[in-house]
């Protein structure tokens, strides 16, 4: 049984998705999705232990030997990202019920959860798979289901957002497909481990350069790296609240994983960095992403969109870490990924609480919410501190490591931008606090509204994330320790 864990990680959500279509009772569909999410979290934790104890796990699908057969390969890096995805999925699903019942028409709830399970399948599949083409297929499974999920938003603009994401996402995925095809043309293999052995011999080939370029453009589109981020703010702002929580903490994170896996796993790190100058592409774009996206976020009136722009900036921090081109930089990027999943997931979950009670995420409608929804607002403040990077929060740890990796490499401009980005973060988080605590509602509609605190079923997961934000600010043995082992095995 334990030996089949890598396959079970993908198969359980995959099989549950069609089962979910058959369940017509909304609450049962929710229950199934929640149980499956928690099961995948349990499997992820078991895998973390297995990998720590026995090293890399290689699972041969259907018993066919790699490189001909498809291999599922779990190393420290995959186990780490699996835990993040599965944990976010569990927390989102536990909290999701009330919010989903309010935002999704009841006859579509089972289909909604079915699409969610497919999305989870795709994301977990990307991480477990050790086969480049298989990664493309899982990428498309997760993307197609997330387009459908985003289109279920309550506003008609969710449709155009989903359409825009569909066009850009498909172009990105097709670029990745071209890259994988060119690699296959050169080496005759699709297995990542096998490709890694064969690439150093053909490093001068122009086809390899083209493959690298296509992969970079495709993966950057999926990550939403500046200037390919245009799909993200609309998609996050108009998607159903719980889907924003789920996607913000998983989809772009898994794409960052794909970048690490392809450029430091499939291509040996020294070839990516020295022959193909990955750092020279990533560093300037990341710096612009941090500055412009944070700046744009300050002027947003819709808080979900503000946080979405903030995500674009935070993604800049992760790619900045990766672009620094040192093992420490990549570790910093991974730690950033981990803490940002907690913080941004939490902030969007707080938005879901607000939408449930007031039906609006406009800044001015936040007036006086500090009194009406004290627990939700307190969570926003504490998670906001993490986003800014105040000491004793997870956000501080991750910013600190990116900063010290930048200084270690002598990138002073990057170091200044990291600190400057934090200052801009203070500005937009302060705007939320100012409205929630120091302004009284202007419109009569809001004054008469008897808004009360969000249900406990949503507050508990939210506060779990708040506690996580502080816990991982003090104890970094998993977030940093595991990431270091993961990256060091790649850079060895």
């Amino acid at each position: 049984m334990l030996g089949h864990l890598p396959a079970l990680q993908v198969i359980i959500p995959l099989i549950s998705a069609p089962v979910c279509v058959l369940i017509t009772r909304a609450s049962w569909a929710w229950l199934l999705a929640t149980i499956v999410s928690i099961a995948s979290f349990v499997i992820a934790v078991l895998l973390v232990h297995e990998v720590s104890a026995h090293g890399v796990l290689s699972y041969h699908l259907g018993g066919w030997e790699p490189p001909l057969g498809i291999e599922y390969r779990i190393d420290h890096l995959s186990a780490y990202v699996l835990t993040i995805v599965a944990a976010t999925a569990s927390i989102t699903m536990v909290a999701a019920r009330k919010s989903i019942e309010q935002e999704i028409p009841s006859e579509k709830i089972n289909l909604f959860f079915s699409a969610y399970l497919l999305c989870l399948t795709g994301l977990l599949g990307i991480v477990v798979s050790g086969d480049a083409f298989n990664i493309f297929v899982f990428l498309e499974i997760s993307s197609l289901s997330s387009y459908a999920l985003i289109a279920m938003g309550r506003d008609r603009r969710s449709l155009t957002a989903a359409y825009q994401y569909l066009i850009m996402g498909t172009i990105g995925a097709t670029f990745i497909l071209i890259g994988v095809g060119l690699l296959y043309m050169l080496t005759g293999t699709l297995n990542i481990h096998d490709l890694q052995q064969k690439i150093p011999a053909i490093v001068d080939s122009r086809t390899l350069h083209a493959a690298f370029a296509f992969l970079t453009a495709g993966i950057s589109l999926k990550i939403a790296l500046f200037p390919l981020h245009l799909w993200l703010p609309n998609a996050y702002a108009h998607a159903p609240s719980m889907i924003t929580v789920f996607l913000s903490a998983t989809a772009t994170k898994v794409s960052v994983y794909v970048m690490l896996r392809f450029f430091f796993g499939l291509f040996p790190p020294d070839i990516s960095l020295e022959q193909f100058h990955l750092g020279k592409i990533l560093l300037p774009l990341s710096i612009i992403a941090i500055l412009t996206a944070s700046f744009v976020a300050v002027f947003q009136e819709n808080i979900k969109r503000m946080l979405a722009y903030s995500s674009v900036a935070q993604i800049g921090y992760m790619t900045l870490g990766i672009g620094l081109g040192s093992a420490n930089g990549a570790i910093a990027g991974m730690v950033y990924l981990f803490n940002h999943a907690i913080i941004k997931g939490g902030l969007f979950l707080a938005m879901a609480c607000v939408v449930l009670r007031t039906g609006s995420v406009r800044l001015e409608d936040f007036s006086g919410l500090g009194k009406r929804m004290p627990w939700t607002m307190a969570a926003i403040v504490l998670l906001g501190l993490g986003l800014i990077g105040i000491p004793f929060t997870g956000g501080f740890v991750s910013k600190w490591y990116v900063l010290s990796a930048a200084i270690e490499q002598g990138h002073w401009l990057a170091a200044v931008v990291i600190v400057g980005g934090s200052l801009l973060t203070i500005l937009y988080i302060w705007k939320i606090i100012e409205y929630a605590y120091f302004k009284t509602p202007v419109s009569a509609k809001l004054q008469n509204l008897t808004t009360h605190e969000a249900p406990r079923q949503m507050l508990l997961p939210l506060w779990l994330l708040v506690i996580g934000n502080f816990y991982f600010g003090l104890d970094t043995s998993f977030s940093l320790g595991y990431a270091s082992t993961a990256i060091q095995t790649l850079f060895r």
Partner: protein
Amino acid sequence: MIADYFNYWVVIVLMMMGFYIVISDSNLIKKIIGLNIFQTSVFILFISMSKVKGGTAPILIAETDLYSNPLPHVLILTAIVVSVSTTALGLAIIARIHRAYDTVDETAIHEQDDLQDDN
């Protein structure tokens, strides 16, 4: 040069045509058509690389032992399925956009969105 790499030239021309339609056309359905052309060019790229000179179809027969590589065909079967689902989903979203906005033109949709205040 062109004759040697004829298939690959076709791939590049189709790819750029599809890509240009996606970027430049404001009609949502035509964008999907462009996307299809773009993806088809990638299918041709894969199929072209699988051809072995003088090789036959990869079915075991007694007369020859030189076969074309079957693997890219299999990969592309999967990619075609992905492409079909993308098209279906895209068209489904367009159908709902048409119901909500009464147009499938991107510029007209943006105009309507600008009128509606941000929520």
